[in-house]
């Protein structure tokens, strides 16, 4: 029945992660470091508020934009934590996960022929969403020697006059890189010079391990140019609730809302109520999770460096991105052979873009015990490969 598929859908390559998932699914006793979601269960107070909302019979649609109470709380939260200023009445839209928000941004601002600049490597859905919106993508490489920060020199190389939107995704999945204020200022100059919009996916903004996250939207003049996307999945361990949001200039948000009202109507109400509770009373639980991630992060970086691999120290999110090129294996081959020989699942760096070649992504959203076991197995594998050279 393939010929029924629209050509731009048929032409979309399957996610590199999906391919790997299918392979892992056929095997037993695998330790997986392949998961991009927290290992914690949603904090109890948040779960409890979801349960209570059901008991009270809160099972209806909400307004398209989401519960006003939630948007108000989000507005406060963004001001308090990131110095951002959004009017809850018309500058914030609650979505079904940050995923929907990314899709809405692409569809609302891109015309056929427009070009989206996407840092490489980065999260898997920017390019497909851009393509589905009729635009095309240019990957802007980032480099380990630059701590995987996005640099204007690379942007200039990939720039085309058709470029309309730049994606910023920091702290970054898969590298764990962050961008501090000094790194963002030249980017702000670049987007102003070329009159670009920015999709800032700040979903990992709470998960930083040295210093606080600086949001691109908080830079002078960037409020109106930026569509700020975030969500509850990572910070509050709420992936299954499907709550995210996007904030920006009211003209843009009303454009996004048009699509949202016809395609999603509203984000799930139980999730919205739970998200409200998360903002109000789960910040301590969140901090505890950050502390736990930090321990694991240090353990992983130490572990990979002990194996003799170069491993950039991630300062955000919950991934390490070690350089496996010393083994003379491609990312895909490394991941596949590691899985077959040691039953450890990692994701090849190339799943996140061409610059991911030579790297693997390992999530540390696992218990210390699991990570230790995985490190032992990976080091046996690496040792065997290095001794063959």
């Amino acid at each position, binding site marked *: 029945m393939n010929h029924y598929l629209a050509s731009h859908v048929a032409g979309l390559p399957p996610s590199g*992660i999906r391919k790997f998932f299918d392979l892992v699914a056929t095997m037993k006793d695998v330790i997986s470091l392949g998961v991009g*979601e927290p290992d914690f269960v949603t904090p109890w107070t948040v779960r409890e508020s979801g349960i209570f909302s059901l008991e009270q019979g809160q099972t209806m649609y909400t307004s398209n934009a989401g519960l006003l109470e939630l948007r108000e709380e989000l507005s406060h939260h963004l001001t308090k934590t990131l110095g951002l200023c959004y009017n809850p009445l018309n500058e914030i839209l609650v979505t079904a996960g940050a995923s929907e928000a990314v899709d809405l941004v692409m569809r609302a601002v891109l015309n056929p022929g427009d070009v989206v600049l996407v840092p490489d490597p980065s*999260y*898997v859905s920017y390019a497909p969403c851009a393509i589905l919106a009729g635009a095309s993508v240019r990957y802007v490489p980032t480099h380990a020697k630059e701590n995987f920060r996005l640099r204007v020199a690379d942007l200039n190389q990939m720039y085309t006059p058709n470029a309309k939107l730049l994606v910023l995704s920091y702290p970054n*999945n898969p590298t764990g890189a962050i961008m501090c204020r000094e790194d963002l200022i030249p980017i702000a100059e670049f987007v102003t010079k070329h009159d670009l919009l920015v999709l800032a996916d700040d979903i990992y903004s709470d998960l930083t391990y040295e210093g606080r996250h600086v949001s691109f939207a908080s830079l002078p003049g960037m409020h109106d140019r930026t569509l700020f996307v975030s969500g509850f999945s990572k910070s509050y361990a709420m992936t299954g609730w499907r709550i995210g949001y996007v904030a920006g200039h009211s003209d843009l948000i009303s454009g996004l809302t048009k699509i949202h009202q016809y395609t999603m109507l509203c984000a799930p109400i139980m999730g919205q109520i739970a998200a409200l509770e998360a903002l109000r009373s789960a910040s301590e639980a969140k901090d505890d999770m950050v502390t736990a991630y930090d321990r694991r992060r240090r*353990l992983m970086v*130490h572990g990979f460096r002990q194996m003799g691999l170069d491993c950039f120290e991630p300062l955000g999110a919950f991934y390490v991105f070690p350089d496996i090129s010393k083994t003379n294996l491609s990312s895909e081959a490394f991941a596949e052979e590691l899985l077959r020989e040691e039953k450890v699942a990692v994701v090849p760096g190339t799943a996140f873009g061409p610059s991911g070649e030579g790297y693997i992504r390992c999530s540390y959203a696992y218990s210390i015990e699991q990570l230790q076991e995985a490190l032992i197995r990976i080091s046996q594998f690496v040792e065997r490969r290095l001794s063959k050279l």
Partner: protein
Amino acid sequence: MLTEEDHRLLKLIAEDCRLTPEQLSVQTGLTPDYIRKRIIDWEKEKVIVGYQPMINWARTNEERVSALIEVRVLPQRGYGFDKIAKRIQKFPEIKALFLMSGGYDLSLLIEGKTMQEVALFVAEKLAPLEHVQSTATHFVLRRYKQDGVELMGEEETIQRLVVSP
């Protein structure tokens, strides 16, 4: 006040005191030497007062009962409750002792082999003490949660995908 780093270190030790200074070093970024010194200081300052595993005795076949005992005492001039509390705490049967606000003064956690043994201890040792006015004994029937650990909780079986973006 603890520095942020010391706070993290102490919390880690509280969570798992089996970690060696080297392991703690990897997980905190502090040097093993610093950690060793800090632990010795904390032991001296009685910040760290012991290292104990948490044991769920109910899962063994040991006979063991515990009771919470409310005690009313007459405070003493110049000493308040401290003098009598320091005396009472000497009994090894008493595992915990708190001064309380509200309807009574001291709260004791007592452990013994049988209810009989605990009851006798209260009747023969505790109640007759000078300044003790009255006692009320509440036996523990089941421990659901202790020191933050759910003892009777159902395991939350988390089913995450094995690979996700």
